[in-house]
């Protein structure tokens, strides 16, 4: 099989796997979800996932970790959130800080 065809096969297979995972989550019987312990757990899962995504997005660098312009950008985002800035302001401010610092030579 050519490399191009193999890549297509991987794209289609990975797309199917990712959709199936999402669909399985929607097919969980509702009476399972009524269990209080599961309801309690599910909102904590969202918190843990979002926190992990913040960490990986802010410090992940290829296979390792790095501290770079993303850290001050994230600090500005946290400050904006503490000041109750709207979501879009928080996101644009972080991008602007990181872009400015990188233009000034910070990695």
């Amino acid at each position: 099989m050519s490399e191009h065809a193999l890549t297509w096969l991987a794209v289609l297979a990975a797309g199917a796997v990712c959709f199936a995972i999402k669909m399985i989550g929607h097919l969980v019987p509702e009476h399972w979800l009524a269990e209080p312990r599961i309801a309690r757990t599910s909102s904590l899962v969202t918190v843990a996932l979002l926190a992990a995504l913040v960490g990986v997005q802010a410090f992940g660098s290829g296979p390792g970790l790095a501290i770079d312009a993303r850290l001050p950008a994230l600090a500005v985002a946290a400050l904006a959130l503490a000041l109750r800035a709207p979501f879009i302001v928080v996101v644009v401010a972080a991008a602007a800080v990181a872009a400015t610092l990188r233009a000034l030579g910070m990695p």
Partner: protein
Amino acid sequence: MVTGVAASDRRAAVQQSLSVAAATGLYAVSFGALAVSAGLDLPQTAALSLLMFSGGSQFAFIGVLGAGGAAASAVATAGLLGARNGLYGPLVSPFLRVRGWRRAAAAQVTIDESTAVSTAQPTPEAARTAFWWTGVGIFVLWNVFTVAGALLGDALGDPRRYGLDAAAAAAFLALLWPRLGARVARVVAALGMAVALVLTPLVPSGLPVLAAAVVAIAVGWLRGPDEPSAAAEPEVGS
């Protein structure tokens, strides 16, 4: 007036959804550019965003292929990182109440952002509104900007130059922020981030985020039912 309150809840939900959709959708520019530089062609890049539609899985997929990894490990890595979307279905399906093709459509747009914005709403109606506006809004923008990034990749240069990686971190922080009211939520957030960061240099990408979810499941499961029910019931954001 009840209908007035419901309408303003829905308006706030739409505004939050569109903010999230714009910020997240734009980030697909960097996905499109990186996918092409990892060796995928334009139709393959566009197909990934249409079919996989899960940012973390997509970046991991092209990361493995771009580093010369086997196709099978790219599929496995994408699946592992996408596993968290399977945990989101049970969070959103109770208020969505959809069947048939609408359930398939809902499943496809069940991602971090649609789950987080919808579960942060005060009423099931507002949650439904937020889920569809965020999910479909990101789906449309994500696919448009994927193609733009793939076409303009060379002209755009390194997406990090525009701070888009920092923007994504800030977006996740903004989604997390209103959920940190309860102490147990703050503990789980700190544990989840620590576990993900410690594992990042050690295991394939995708697994650190999944491990953080496992930590949350363990904490949620082991907590006694007699403790105050403070499972991060989020306040509505601004």
